[in-house]
């Protein structure tokens, strides 16, 4: 026998059940969209991340770049070849000189000229110095993003030494604009070689300091090991390059494997480090070793620097013959290349800029699936991008 329940009571019961289920429905399935950026300290630049969360876990995280897009590919079409270096300096602003080199090499390849040996050596030294300036700041900034602010001060202190050396040659701390088609603007100042050697010692000390302070830190290791694992085939498929690729165990360094003409890496004794884990820790560790190797490269280059002119014979008004050339170098952030199409004019017809961070960040939606929110920051920090290098 069923108890008779008044209709009003039945309706109330149904309504209560429905309300309950709606609450449960909301708790279980409705996620939350967290908008990180465009202005956020963790993105060091105006990168916006649209993260869909389920609790603390990331369901999807889609970067939205473009807040700083400056249209360099269009602008290069109305600049003469020597003027382009001023623009491309601003792509990766922490290692500015390294941006100029592949473009100049591409133009030299099309013109069929090569810089004299002394210019090649100094060019490579400055190229490596910008790597030091870039990656020392990475090692410090990593600490700041993961909650250990101390490392930042060490990094800024020692990067200053590197910047001073760049400044005393080029006159510019951040945007040297020093590379020329066929050579360099100026020769080295007096006493610079000895000063730079002292700086290299300081950077090596800095590496030891940061290794004990940050890399060996237990909290850092807990937060970085096993987080954001990128297998090698995925890294290659996304076009990751530089330390991100070597941190996934792929032994590819364009300086050793495919050195462009006019960079004497094949005459030097140094090592390319890889790490098989593919996580945040391995990317950081590979960068630390890269700094150490880079100081060794600079030391050897300083010892073997040849004498002679620093400019090849180039016409005053530079017209680049018709053709196409692609030159790629191992920049601080990874492989950076310029695909230059020339029509025999004063200006490039088309320049495709392949910047490292663009490919490195395009993996973010893949690598952040299922991780926790604080790990997103760790992953972004160790993928290491410069906004200007994404947005160009």
């Amino acid at each position: 026998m069923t108890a008779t329940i008044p209709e009003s009571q039945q309706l109330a019961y149904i309504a209560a059940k429905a309300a309950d289920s709606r609450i449960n429905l909301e708790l279980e399935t409705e996620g939350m969209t967290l908008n990180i950026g465009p202005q956020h300290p963790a993105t060091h630049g105006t990168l916006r991340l649209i993260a869909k969360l389920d609790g603390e876990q990331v369901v999807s995280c889609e970067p939205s770049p473009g807040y700083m897009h400056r249209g360099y590919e269009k602008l290069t079409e109305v600049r003469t070849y020597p003027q382009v270096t001023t623009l491309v300096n601003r792509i990766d602003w922490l290692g500015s000189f390294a941006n100029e080199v592949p473009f100049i090499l591409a133009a030299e390849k099309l013109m069929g000229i090569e810089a004299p040996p002394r210019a090649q050596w100094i060019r490579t030294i400055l190229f490596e110095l910008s790597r030091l300036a870039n990656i020392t700041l990475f090692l410090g900034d990593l600490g700041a993003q993961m909650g250990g602010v101390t490392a930042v001060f060490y990094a800024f202190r020692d990067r200053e030494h590197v910047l001073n050396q760049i400044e005393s040659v080029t006159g510019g701390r951040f945007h040297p604009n020093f590379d020329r088609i066929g050579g360099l603007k100026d020769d080295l100042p007096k006493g610079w070689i000895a000063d730079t050697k002292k700086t290299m010692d300081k950077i090596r000390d800095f590496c030891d300091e940061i290794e004990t302070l940050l890399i060996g830190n237990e909290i850092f290791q807990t937060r970085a090991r096993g987080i954001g694992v990128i297998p090698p085939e995925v890294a290659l498929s996304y076009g990751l390059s530089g330390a991100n690729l070597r941190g996934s165990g792929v032994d590819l360094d364009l300086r050793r494997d495919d050195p462009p003409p006019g960079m004497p890496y094949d005459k030097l004794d140094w090592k390319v480090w890889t790490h098989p884990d593919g996580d945040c820790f391995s990317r950081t560790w590979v960068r630390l070793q890269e700094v150490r190797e880079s100081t060794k490269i600079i030391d050897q280059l300083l010892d073997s620097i040849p004498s002679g002119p620093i400019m090849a014979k180039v016409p005053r008004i530079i017209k680049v013959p018709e053709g196409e050339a692609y030159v790629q170098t191992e920049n601080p952030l990874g492989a950076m290349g310029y695909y230059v199409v020339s029509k025999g004019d004063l200006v490039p017809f088309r320049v495709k800029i392949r910047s490292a961070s663009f490919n490195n960040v395009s993996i973010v939606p893949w690598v952040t699936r299922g991780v926790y929110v604080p790990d997103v920051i760790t992953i972004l920090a160790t993928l290491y991008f410069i906004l200007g290098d994404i947005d160009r």
Partner: protein
Amino acid sequence: MPRDDRREAILARISEHLGDAVVGSHIRVGDDLWVRVTREAWPEAAEVAQKRLGCHFFDFLSAIDWLPSPFGRDMDSQEDIVVKGLEPKEPAPMASGYAGGDTRFQVFARVYHPVEHWGVTFKADLPDDDLSVGTWSNVYRGANWHERETHEMFGFDFVGHPNLIKLYLPIDFEGYPLRKDFPLLSRRVKPWPGIVDVEPMPGEDEPGDGDGEGEGGSE
């Protein structure tokens, strides 16, 4: 004429897999390789490059607009016209680059062999009336963003792309900025400031400007 046996062999392997779809090629000895394929074979070229040739490293994908700038030389170099008083030249006839081409728009992409250390640049022609081409993003994941960029900058349609929306530009942006007929407005309305302060070279005659300025007021 020196031969590049290594790249000849690579080209032969590509031709073997793609057959008649390879419509043009160019080898710069000891340096680089260009292969032009038909539009229909564009997705297949990615498959061949990755799975048959072993070019696992994705470099970039973009496009070229071969139309000579309809704005003439004044977009290119005002210095020649203003300083030397030259007549603006007629734009040159349209010509394509390495590996040839028949159309205004070409999509091109580059992949790299991470072990043997060589790269190859693929190109494909796109007819003006149908700017669509198959996607590479299901072979090379990195092509996803590159195709989005090419989509907004050139107006190409990548068939099969999972998420073909604008990457850099605002959603309501109109036009395709990297096409040659898209004017660079800042240059149209105002000459580049660099040409204003062109100084005469030593030995050339000083132009008398008659306003009493210049040379630091020596009297």
